[in-house]
C-alpha cells in the first residue's frame, strides 16, 4: 500500500482511537495522541520521499497525492511544530474537560494540513482545506467563550475564502476538465484574460483569509486568542502558513503567466505591508497577551505576504525563511503565554508582573523568541528581515521598505510590553507562589529557542532546502544559489554563513557581555524590587508600584488618527444591513392562508403576462 495513504490512515485511525481512548482513561488518551502524531511524523520522514505519487479517481475526477520539495519544506513546519505542540499540550491541557474532543481535532488539524501539502490536485486540496477549517473552528469554540461572535466570525470568513477558492476551482475544472495542479499550470496560459485575472484573485482571497491578509484578517485576533494556547501556537505558526503556501503556489505558478502591468503583485504586496503596519499598531494597543500575540502574528504574516507577492528570487527566499522562523518563534511565544496562563491563571499583561525570577526558563525562551521576532542579530529573525529589505530595495519597492521597517521598529514596543508585562517590573506578593512550568511544557520552548539561534548563525541549514524547493517552483537560479544574491551571506566550503565579520562582532559582543557583568555581578547583592528610590517612602507589602495601565499611551496618542476605527466596524455595518434585509424578506411568508392563495393567483397572472417572454 502506498505510504502516503498509510500516513493518512494513521492519522484518521489515531484520531478516532484517541477519542475513544480518552473516554476510557486519561493516560491512554494522551499516550495514543502522542503515539499517533509521532508515528505519522516518523512514517513521513522515513518512508515518504519526494516524487512518489499516489493517484486515484473519485467521482470521475483524477486525483493525485504526492510530495514536492516545497511542500516537504512546509511539512517541516507542520510536523515539527505539531509534534512539539502535542508534547506541550499534554501537560498544558491537564485537568481540562472534553480532552478527547481536543485531541481529536488537534490530530485532524495536523492531518488536514499534511493533506493540503500532499495533495497535487485542487479537489483534494479543497477537501483538506475545509477539514482544516472545521477542525480548527471546533478548537476555537472549544472553551465556549463568546462562541457565537468569535467562532461564527472565524467560520464565516473561512467560508467566504473557501467558497471563493471553490468557485475558482470549479471554473478551472470547466476550463481544463482536470483538477490536477500541473494541468492547470500547463494550460493556464491559454485562458482568456478575464479568467487570467479573476482566477488568481479568487484563489488569493481564499488563501488571504487564512494568512490574515489585510481586509480579511478580522477573524484572526479573536480566533487565535480564544483557542487554547497549546493549539494557538499551531494555529498561528502552521495553520496560517497554509495560506502562505497557497500564495506561494499561486504567485510562482499562475501570476508569473499573466502580464505584469496588471499590478496584482503590487496590490498584494501593499496589502501585506499595510497588514504589517496596522497589525503592529493594534498589537501595541492590546493589554491581553493573547490578543497582542494574535495581532503580532497578523503583522508578521504581513511581511511574509509582501515577500511572496514581490516574488523575486530573494524576496521569495526571504518570505519562506521568515515563514519557517515565524512558526518557530510565534509558536514559542504562544506556548510561553500558555505556560503563564497555567501557572498564574491569567494572561492579562496588566495583572501579572515580575515572573522573571519565578519562571527563568520560560523567560529565556520568551527572550530568545522576542529577539528573533524583533529581528535583532544574532538570532534568525535578523537574517530573514535583512533578506526581505534587500529584496525590496533591489526590486524598487522603496516605500514598502519604509513601511515594513516602521512596522518592525514599532514592533519593539509590543515586544517590550510583552516581556515587561509578564517577567519584569515589580514582584508582587500576589504572584509569590508561582512556580516554573512543568518540564514537558518548558522543553519544547527551549528546543525552539535553540533552533532559532542555530538558524540565525547557520541559515544555510534552512536555505538549502528552500533553494531546492524554489527551483522546483520554476525559479531559475540566476547565479548558483539564491542566497548569493544577498550581501549578507558568504559560502565557506559547504556551509552558508553570515559574513565572518558578523561573527567577529558577535564574538566581541559576547565577550563584552561576559567581561562587563560576570565579575561585577558577584560583588553586588540582590535587593527586592520594593527597595527602590521612591522619594524616601517605604512601599508596603501589597502596595502596587507597577506601571501597567495604558502602557504606550503617548505613542498611541500620536497614532490616534490611524486607529480611530477598526475594520470590524465596517463589517458589522454590512452584517447588520444584511440581517435587516433578511428580516424584511422573511415577511413574505405571512403565515396566512389567504395571502398564499393570493400569491398563487398573482403568480399565475404574472406567468400569463410574461408567457411570451418566458416561453418561446
Amino acid at each position: 500500500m502506498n505510504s502516503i495513504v498509510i500516513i493518512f490512515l494513521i492519522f484518521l485511525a489515531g484520531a478516532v482511537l484517541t477519542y475513544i481512548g480518552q473516554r476510557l482513561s486519561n493516560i491512554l488518551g494522551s499516550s495514543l495522541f502522542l503515539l499517533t502524531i509521532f508515528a505519522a511524523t516518523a512514517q513521513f520522514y522515513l518512508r515518504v520521499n519526494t516524487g512518489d505519487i499516489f493517484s486515484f479517481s473519485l467521482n470521475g475526477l483524477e486525483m493525485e497525492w504526492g510530495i514536492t520539495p516545497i511542500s516537504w519544506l512546509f511539512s517541516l513546519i507542520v510536523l515539527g511544530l505539531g509534534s512539539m505542540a502535542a508534547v506541550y499540550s499534554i501537560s498544558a491541557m491537564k485537568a481540562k474537560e472534553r480532552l478527547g474532543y481536543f485531541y481529536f481535532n488537534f490530530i485532524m488539524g495536523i492531518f488536514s494540513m499534511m493533506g493540503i501539502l500532499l495533495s497535487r490536485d485542487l479537489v483534494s486540496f479543497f477537501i483538506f482545506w475545509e477539514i482544516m477549517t472545521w477542525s480548527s473552528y471546533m478548537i476555537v469554540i472549544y472553551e465556549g467563550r463568546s462562541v457565537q461572535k468569535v467562532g461564527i466570525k472565524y467560520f464565516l470568513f473561512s467560508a467566504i475564502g473557501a467558497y471563493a477558492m471553490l468557485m475558482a476551482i470549479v471554473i478551472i475544472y470547466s476550463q481544463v476538465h482536470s483538477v490536477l495542479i500541473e494541468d492547470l499550470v500547463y494550460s493556464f496560459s491559454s485562458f482568456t484574460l478575464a479568467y487570467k485575472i479573476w482566477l488568481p484573485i479568487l484563489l488569493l482571497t481564499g488563501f488571504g483569509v487564512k494568512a490574515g491578509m489585510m481586509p480579511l484578517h478580522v477573524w484572526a485576533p479573536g480566533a487565535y486568542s480564544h483557542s487554547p494556547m497549546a493549539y494557538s501556537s499551531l494555529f498561528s505558526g502552521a495553520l496560517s502558513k497554509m495560506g502562505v503556501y497557497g500564495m506561494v503556489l499561486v504567485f510562482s505558478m499562475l501570476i508569473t503567466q499573466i502580464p505584469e502591468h496588471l499590478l496584482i503583485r503590487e496590490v498584494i504586496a501593499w496589502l501585506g505591508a499595510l497588514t504589517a503596519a496596522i497589525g503592529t499598531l493594534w498589537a501595541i494597543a492590546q493589554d491581553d497577551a493573547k490578543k497582542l500575540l494574535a495581532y503580532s502574528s497578523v503583522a508578521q504574516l504581513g511581511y511574509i505576504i509582501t515577500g511572496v507577492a514581490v516574488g523575486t528570487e530573494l524576496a521569495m527566499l526571504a518570505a519562506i525563511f521568515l515563514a519557517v522562523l515565524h512558526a518557530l518563534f510565534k509558536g514559542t511565544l504562544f506556548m510561553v503565554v500558555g505556560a503563564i496562563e497555567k501557572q498564574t491563571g491569567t494572561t492579562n499583561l496588566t495583572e501579572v508582573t515580575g515572573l522573571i525570577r519565578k519562571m527563568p526558563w520560560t523567560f529565556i525562551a520568551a527572550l530568545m523568541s522576542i529577539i528573533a521576532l524583533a529581528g535583532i542579530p544574532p538570532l534568525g529573525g535578523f537574517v530573514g528581515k535583512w533578506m526581505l529589505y534587500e529584496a525590496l530595495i533591489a526590486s524598487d519597492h522603496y516605500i514598502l521598505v519604509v513601511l515594513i521597517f516602521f512596522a518592525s521598529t514599532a514592533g519593539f514596543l509590543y515586544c517590550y510590553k510583552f516581556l515587561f508585562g509578564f517577567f519584569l517590573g515589580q514582584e508582587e506578593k500576589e504572584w509569590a507562589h508561582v512556580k516554573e512550568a512543568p518540564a514537558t511544557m518548558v522543553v519544547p520552548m527551549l528546543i525552539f529557542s535553540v533552533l532559532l539561534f542555530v538558524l540565525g548563525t547557520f541559515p544555510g541549514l534552512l536555505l538549502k532546502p528552500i533553494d531546492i524547493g524554489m527551483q522546483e517552483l520554476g525559479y531559475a537560479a540566476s547565479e548558483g544559489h539564491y542566497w548569493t544574491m544577498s550581501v549578507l551571506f558568504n559560502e565557506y566550503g559547504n556551509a552558508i554563513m553570515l559574513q565572518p565579520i558578523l561573527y567577529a562582532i558577535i564574538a566581541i559582543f559576547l565577550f563584552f557581555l561576559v567581561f562587563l557583568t560576570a565579575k561585577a555581578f558577584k560583588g553586588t547583592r540582590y535587593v527586592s524590587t520594593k527597595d527602590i528610590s521612591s522619594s524616601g517612602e517605604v512601599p508596603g507589602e501589597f502596595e502596587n508600584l507597577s506601571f501597567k495601565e495604558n502602557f504606550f499611551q503617548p505613542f498611541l496618542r500620536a497614532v490616534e488618527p490611524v486607529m480611530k476605527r477598526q475594520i470590524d466596524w465596517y463589517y458589522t455595518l454590512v452584517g447588520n444591513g444584511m440581517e435587516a434585509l433578511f428580516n424584511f424578506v422573511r415577511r413574505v411568508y405571512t403565515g396566512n392562508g389567504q395571502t398564499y392563495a393570493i400569491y398563487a393567483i398573482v403568480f399565475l397572472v404574472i406567468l400569463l403576462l410574461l408567457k411570451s417572454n418566458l416561453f418561446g
Partner: protein
Amino acid sequence: MESLLYSILGVLVSLILAFTVGMTYMGLSRKITARIQNRIGPPFYQNFIDAMKLYSKSTGIHHGVMHHLGPAFIMVTSVMSLMIIPILNDSAFFTNMNFHGDLIFLLYIMTFGPLGMALGAGQTGNPNSAIGVTRGLSQMVGFEIPWVMAIIALMIRYDTSSIVDIMNIQADAGRWIMFSSPFTFIAALLAMLGMFRYSPFDIVGAPTELASGPMSENGGKYLFTMMSSSSIFAFAKLTLYVNLFMGGADNLLVLIIKTFALYMVPLLYGTVSPRYRTEQAVRYFWGWPSFFGLLAILYAVFF
C-alpha cells in the same frame, strides 16, 4: 587574518579615542550651555572627573540579572556600532570591521541598545524607569522613520549598502553628499536631533519629573558604564554622519573638527528650545523630517 588583527587593533584604539573625544564633547557641551546661560560652568574635563567618581563609588546592589545586564547591553551596542563604522578614509588601520550591507546592520544595532537598556530598566521595578522606557521607545519609533528614509535614499542614489563605498564615492566626486543630495542630509540631521536626546527631546530622562527615568535605579559603576557608552555612542554617530554626508575625514584632526561642528547642531538647538511631550515629538518626526525623507527618496529615484 592579518587585516582582521589590524582591524581589531584599530577597534581598540578607536574605542579609546571615542571615549576621550566623546567625554570631552560632553564636558564642552556643559561648558557651552553654562556660558549661554551666563554662568562660568564646570571645566571641560568635568565629565572625566564625574566618570572617575562614579567608578570609584561602591555599587552594592542590583535588582536582578536583567538590571545588571542593562548597562552592559548599551555599552555593547555602542561598541558594536563603533566597530563597524570606519573612522578615517581609506586607512588600513582605522577602517575597522565594516563590510557590505553594514548600513542595514547599523540600523538594527542602533535600535538594539535602547531595547537592552529597557530590559534592564524594566527589572528594577521602578515605575519611573518603565515610564521613561516607554517614552524612549516611542521617540525611537518616531525618529527611525526619517533616518531610515535618508539611509534608503542613500542606498538608492549610490546603489550600495556599504559606508566605505559611500565615502569613496564622495572622495571621487570631490563633493559632499550634504550638498549633492541636500534633502537626505536634512532628513538625517533632523533625525539626529532625536537620536542625541537633547532638549527638546529629553523627556525620556526628565530629572525632576521621572527622577531621570530609565537610569533612576542605577548608581555607581552602572551609571559610569552608561555615561561612557553614551559618549562612545555619540562619537560613533557623529562619525557615521560625517562619513555619510560630509565626505569622511582624512586624518583625526579633520575628523574632530567635522564631528564637533556637527555636534554643535543638536546642542545649540537644544539650549534654546523647550521640551516636547512624547506624542508631540513623535508627530514632529513624522512631519517635516519624514517629508524631507520622502523628498530625498523621490529625488534619488528620479534624478
